[in-house]
């Protein structure tokens, strides 16, 4: 085995919040000199789509997610809107509103957007592999995804993952 450090990530989630860890860790690993691959499978395929507007965040069923407003006076921003699941599930477009608010909070905090982080990964030569089986399972076409993606299966993943220093399932 050579001295080159390597990291592999399996990305399985398809929401805006869970798109952060794979792209943050992969871009940082690349900056630190790691050869890095992300294997996208199941809902993780959402992160490879040309159009990322489908990535949303849902506070429904997520007691760990504080709902704070990204605008208004200080006292207003500090309120934690504790909205019961039963109400959340009934309000139309609840996820769209929550997603809009989260995007504003991200912007206010100087946190990168997902398209930005994905581009930084690509610039740093992080290799993206899409799971061909789930691409077919969900009825995607290769043309739904950005350029530079490779398509493969579990064996393709292990070929690289077996030689890594760090291997994460997200």
């Amino acid at each position: 085995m050579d001295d080159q450090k390597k990291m592999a990530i399996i990305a399985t989630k398809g929401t805006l919040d869970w798109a952060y860890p794979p792209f943050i860790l992969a871009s940082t690993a690349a900056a630190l000199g790691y050869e890095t691959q992300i294997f996208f499978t199941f809902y993780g395929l959402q992160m490879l789509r040309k159009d990322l507007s489908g990535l949303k965040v849902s506070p429904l069923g997520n007691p760990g997610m504080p709902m704070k407003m990204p605008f208004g006076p200080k006292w207003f921003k500090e309120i934690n809107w504790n909205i019961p699941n039963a109400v959340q599930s009934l309000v139309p477009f609840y996820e769209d509103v929550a997603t809009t608010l989260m995007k504003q909070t991200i912007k206010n905090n100087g946190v990168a957007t997902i398209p930005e982080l994905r581009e930084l990964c690509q610039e740093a030569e992080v290799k993206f592999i899409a799971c061909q089986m789930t691409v077919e399972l969900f009825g995607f076409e290769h043309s739904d995804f950005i350029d530079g993606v490779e398509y493969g299966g579990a064996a393709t993943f292990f070929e690289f993952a077996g030689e890594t220093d760090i291997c994460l399932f997200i």
Partner: protein
Amino acid sequence: MNFDKELDAKGLNCPLPILRTKKTLNEMTSGQVLRVIATDPGSVKDFAAFAKQTGNELLSSAEAGSEYTFFIKKK
């Protein structure tokens, strides 16, 4: 301290200060010094870790108010 290039990473949050630093260092030559100014409190530990792992030397790390200034010498 003298420096050859400066990077303004104010207002940026993890991992952007490190990613921009790496990108800027790529454009520099060995031995040159980069000054980075950041406001992310997490960057203090991050820049030390970045230097240790990449072999670029962290010449100094200073805090003034809510700003952090780093001098990094390219490997």
